């Protein structure tokens, strides 16, 4: 807004017209994104250019996966945590990104069942997942960091899994 004001100097009418147009543009834009661009579960909205401030934001942007049952989803997540490591080690970026997003989506469906039992573990898992999403999207991969985060995730999820599946 400050930029617009400066650009149009003392011409108040033009300034207000531009402001109104911008408001209308923004409103229609928001409406479209809310109704038309329904995100696929597990997809990172940030991919469409939306800027994120950190790893927690990246996790927040992931939609919870639709799961049939908790034990199967928990098994799938354990399996993905392991295959994610393989994808990173073999430099398979597309697969690693896909798996990271699916892991986050699954966790978001499962976390409600684990939350009260071990809040510290849940926090750790969310930090690790946020870190994975951030690191896997980086232009230059830090493989050591990715594997470290994935290992931490593996251990953290192992700890909360019994509460989910029993």
């Amino acid at each position: 807004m400050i930029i617009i004001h400066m650009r149009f100097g003392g011409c108040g009418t033009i300034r207000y017209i531009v402001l109104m147009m911008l408001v209308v543009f923004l409103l229609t834009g928001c409406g479209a994104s809310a109704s038309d661009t329904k995100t696929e579960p597990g997809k990172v909205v940030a991919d469409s250019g939306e800027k994120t401030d950190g790893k927690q934001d990246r996790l927040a942007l992931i939609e919870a996966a639709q799961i049939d049952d908790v034990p199967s989803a928990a098994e799938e997540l354990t399996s993905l945590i392991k295959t994610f490591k393989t994808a990173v080690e073999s430099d398979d970026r597309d697969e690693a990104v896909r798996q990271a997003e699916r892991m986050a989506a699954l966790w978001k469906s499962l976390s409600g069942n684990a939350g009260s039992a071990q809040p510290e573990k849940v926090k750790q898992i969310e930090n690790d997942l946020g870190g994975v999403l951030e690191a896997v999207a980086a232009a230059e991969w830090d493989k050591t960091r990715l594997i470290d985060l994935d290992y931490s995730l593996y251990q953290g999820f192992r700890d909360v899994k019994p509460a989910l599946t029993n």
Partner: protein
Amino acid sequence: MMRRKLLSLLLAVALVVGLVPATAAVATGKTVSVTIDGKKQSYSVNPRIENGRTLVPYRAIAEALGGTVSYDGKSKKATIKKGGQTIELTQGSKSARINGSAITLDAAPLNVSGTLLVPLRFVGESLGVWVTWNGASSTAVLETKRTFKHELGSTTLNSVPKRVVVLFNGGVDISVLLKVKPVGAVESYIQQPFYEYIRSSLIGVKTLGDETQPNVEAIVALKPDVIIATKDRHEGIYKQLSKIAPTIVTKDLADWQDNLQVMSKVFNKEDIATAYLADWKKQVAEFKRKLSAKDKGAAVSIIRINPNGTARAYNTGFAYKIFQELGFSTPKAQRATGEEIIPVASTEQISLLDGDYIFDFTTDWDGDGAILQHQKTWTSSALWKNLNAVKNNKYYKVNSVTWNLSGGALAAKLMLDDLYFYFGLE
């Protein structure tokens, strides 16, 4: 002639068919014996196996062990007093009390012709005797004392200990597995007071300082029934410890399987240890079966960076033993040194750290990150990047607690589970 043969055949078949149920009945009705300190006991109502549980006459056993028993027919409640301990149990109820604390029996006490039969396990838990089951002779073996021959001597216990002190971290882990809450235990090397993975089971346990230098005065104050120590750490203070309480010394800090067996015998928890070790063997076999052909026998290098900035490789210790059991090999260069702990002073000797896989359990002892800085210096060097494991993306920083610092039975399974992650096994 033909008719006679047919008749004989039919008679033979009838005989065999008739014998089968009789044999089965004998099998299920097999006589169950009880011995106390090797002497066979006889009872008016015989012990028996009901639904897979061995039930034994409680009153007669309690009295033979010096207890007094009273029975209230109206409430069907038996009260047993022995050595300052009061046990209350009720016919038909799985709930019992030992000194007011509620416990649950495997099966409800059964009244057979006026004799109360209770699960065998409860006899040990309530009367302080060691109980084992000899399946071959169907005998419940009760012992009122046990002598443990160990590395530093021989120690006799006169009842199953209740006030237990554990002086090494692997033992603390094992006590959690065996469901024996110590009155005191050494604190963990990091994550004090106790490692996070077992901490919730140790709430209220008094900490006794470092395992390398336990606080003897604090041990005295706890008035323990038994002290569990280990030769590597406590040989120098064994005599001092033995004056405080009967002390049992395990032979190898890192030999979690032996430590588990020793401690289970002390605590009367051999059933838990046996089941755990059987499951471990099964898991080891399963891991070996699942491991890809290229990784079978792979040379595994176990390393850490030291606080002074040097490094070392391990051809000994907890993780090493597990890798050996899993069928992995030791890097040739390390083996050639003949050392168990191979010092690597500088990057000039860096090849000693190499292997098909490198697992690094460097510990941030002080939590100030200084040692991690040393680790970064090593792993940033050009020579490091030239190691085979590093070039092949097979260098991993692992959990120092479950791979090294703990050394317990629960840690062993966590480490094995980590290997499913590292070797990409389902």
